[in-house]
């Protein structure tokens, strides 16, 4: 069912090459320094894989979601932070693709075409709202030719480095979800105040920022679609983002399994390689089975996304994200376990992968929230 087509084969081949030569060797430093990976941006841009989802109509390559997932997976095998860079770009692109009219698409998406190093991001989360995204208000008020936005955003991916961001805010609180709207906000718009970047357990080579919106002036034409479109736009974007996160988690887990396998085949204890010990074989078997099921569920969700089966996408995206990130957590922790003392040391990549895996259980909605989404959908509770 999931046989690669020729295009996918060629893309993945070149991605693998880039990962091996350019991304893998930098992964440890990126984690240690916790800096934003401008070098990786440059490499991905140069090879035209920074924005692979960009529509053809806007000058992009427009690969399918499944292909995009495979690219993310391939990069995440070596460096979860680098793969998150692609996801961040996609999260900034999709709300515009899904909801913007032609002039707005033309204005912003054109800037992402071949070789572009323009960075984008998404501000969906607000402090003390956490995963319950709409429990606290960022509000937007129309004042003639512009909107004025007030509020606070946290965990804005690429917040401090992005050239433009998509933000959600209430244009009419009384309408609840139907009063939410989406905006494109550029770095340098007056009132967009950067507060700080977070110091994180894992995926340390990424930027998550706290931002303040202090009477942030946004031109009226930067409203995505119409007022009130924001909520459904956001649900679609978040669903997509969950599928990507699942792909990232599956890749990360595969990377850890590969490391553990190569160690288990070398490491001799009790007169044979530890790969010969049944206890280790059991662990390897569970790890591999977990990864394969995560991957298949991810592709299933990606397929539904490409088919625009929105009524199913939300639940499948949540399931893929839940299963894949839980698998990643277990697999990476087991990889450290198989490698014992070595696994626990920073000289080897698996402890980093374990920290990165924890992130995949958390962002794009915690797994606890994924369970609520799935449970409510299946039980028919809105």
């Amino acid at each position: 069912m999931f046989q690669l087509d020729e295009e996918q084969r060629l893309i993945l081949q070149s991605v693998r090459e880039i990962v091996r030569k350019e991304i893998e060797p930098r992964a440890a430093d990126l984690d240690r320094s916790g800096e934003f990976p401008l070098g990786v941006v440059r490499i991905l841009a140069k090879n035209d894989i920074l924005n692979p989802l960009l529509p053809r109509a806007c000058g992009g390559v427009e690969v399918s979601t499944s292909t995009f997932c495979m690219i993310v997976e391939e990069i995440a095998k070596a460096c979860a932070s680098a793969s998150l860079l692609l996801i961040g770009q996609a999260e900034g692109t999709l709300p515009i693709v899904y909801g913007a009219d032609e002039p707005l698409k033309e204005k912003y998406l054109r800037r992402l075409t071949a070789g572009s190093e323009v960075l984008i991001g998404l501000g969906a989360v607000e402090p003390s709202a956490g995963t319950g995204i709409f429990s606290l208000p960022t509000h937007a008020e129309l004042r003639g030719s512009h909107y004025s936005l007030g509020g606070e955003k946290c965990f804005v991916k690429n917040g401090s480095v992005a050239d433009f961001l998509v933000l959600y805010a209430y244009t009419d609180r009384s309408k609840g979800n139907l009063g939410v709207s989406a905006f494109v906000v550029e770095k340098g718009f007056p009132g967009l105040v950067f507060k700080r970047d977070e110091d994180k357990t894992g995926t340390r080579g990424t930027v998550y920022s706290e931002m303040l919106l202090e009477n942030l002036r946004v031109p009226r034409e930067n409203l995505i679609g119409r007022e009130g479109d924001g909520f459904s736009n956001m649900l679609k974007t978040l669903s997509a983002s969950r599928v990507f996160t699942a792909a990232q988690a599956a890749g990360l887990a595969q990377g850890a399994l590969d490391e553990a396998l190569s160690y288990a085949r070398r490491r001799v204890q009790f007169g044979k390689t530890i790969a010969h010990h049944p206890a280790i074989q059991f662990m390897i078997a569970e790890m591999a089975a977990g990864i394969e099921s995560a991957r298949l569920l991810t592709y299933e969700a990606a397929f539904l996304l490409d088919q625009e089966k929105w009524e199913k996408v939300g639940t499948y995206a949540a399931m893929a994200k839940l299963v894949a990130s839980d698998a990643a957590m277990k697999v990476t922790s087991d990889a450290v376990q198989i490698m014992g003392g070595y696994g626990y040391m920073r000289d080897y990549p698996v402890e980093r992968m374990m920290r990165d895996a924890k992130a995949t259980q958390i962002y794009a909605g915690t797994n606890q929230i994924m369970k609520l989404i799935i449970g409510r959908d299946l039980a028919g509770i809105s």
Partner: protein
Amino acid sequence: MFDQTSFIPTEKLKTFRDRIQRIARDKIAPQASLVDEEEFFNREVESLLWDLGLLTLTFPEKYGGFGKGRMVALCLAVEEIAKVCASSSLLLIIQAVGSFPIIDRGSKELKERYLPQMSQGRKLVAYLVTEPTAGSDISGIQSMAVREGDEYILNGSKCFATSGGVAGIYSVLAKTSEKEGKGSSSFFLVERESPGLSIGRAESKLGQRGSNTTEVFLENVRVPAGNLLGREGNGFLIAMKDFDMSRPAIAAQALGIAEGAFEAILQFVKERHTPQRPIADHPAIQAILADSAILIEASRGLVYRAAILNDERKQSTKFASMAKCFAGDAAMKITADAVDAIQVLSGYGFLRDFQVERMFRDGKLTQIFEGTNQIQRLVITRQILKESM
């Protein structure tokens, strides 16, 4: 929150526990984030632990030991300290582990010479067993000790030595026979100043980063023949007996880490208010709190069962392994859940500013050292079969 009283056999132990708990909160907790972040061995905490007598707990009483109930005392102290700083609690464990061979098997003369040095001279002990090719499989060590007149000459490379770079005394396992197998190795007491002993680099670790882990190299290190601990060839036996003591202590550490994480969740649950409904009604939080509490109580039962058996000098291998395995796995689950819980409540569980992400990293080590949990399962099965014969 949790009451250990039912596991604490004496009034003396109760008073002891309460005192450590208070001091851990006041003096050790405030530096926990810093030692993790900066990855440094905190000499001030070490001094405090000496002052409290916690680095000689398992010594004979006349050298500062706790006396009756010492194993329970060790576990209580480790648990209380691990609640706030796992790295600091590890120092107690490794001190007990490292000094076990001399306490258990050292000659009278050797004890009289070294134990006062260690207790009054405040010398830390490191336990040099693990080698690059010998982890879980101790019998795979390559280090050699060759007898020459009144001395042994030691050669070898040791790795992952906790307190390796800060210790004054080392318990070194080396082969005293070319033969393979369990009867071929012996323990030696080696002083830091011995010519030929050198410290390699300090490792950078995922967690328990305030503990010191180094390589130690032995190059023609000469030790007096009297520094052999016990007889030639019983190194493996001593190591196994040492595990009966170290594993409950590691389990106590895991228990403490888990309790620290649990308390962090509770604090958040109490602090966070939502207009709609109490946070404790949140099903995700309920599941985490209930599951964590169950695992903590079950861990406690195993930890103190193993410790009490050890104090009573009864066979405790099975319970020591069960405690280590169960409490380590529980700590890993609870700390991971705590990160999630705080994430659900505030969106901040994953951030370094919050203690739980450190506890999560610290917790992982408890599944690995003093025998990985995979090895514990082998040990448990073997003991069960032995008992059923």
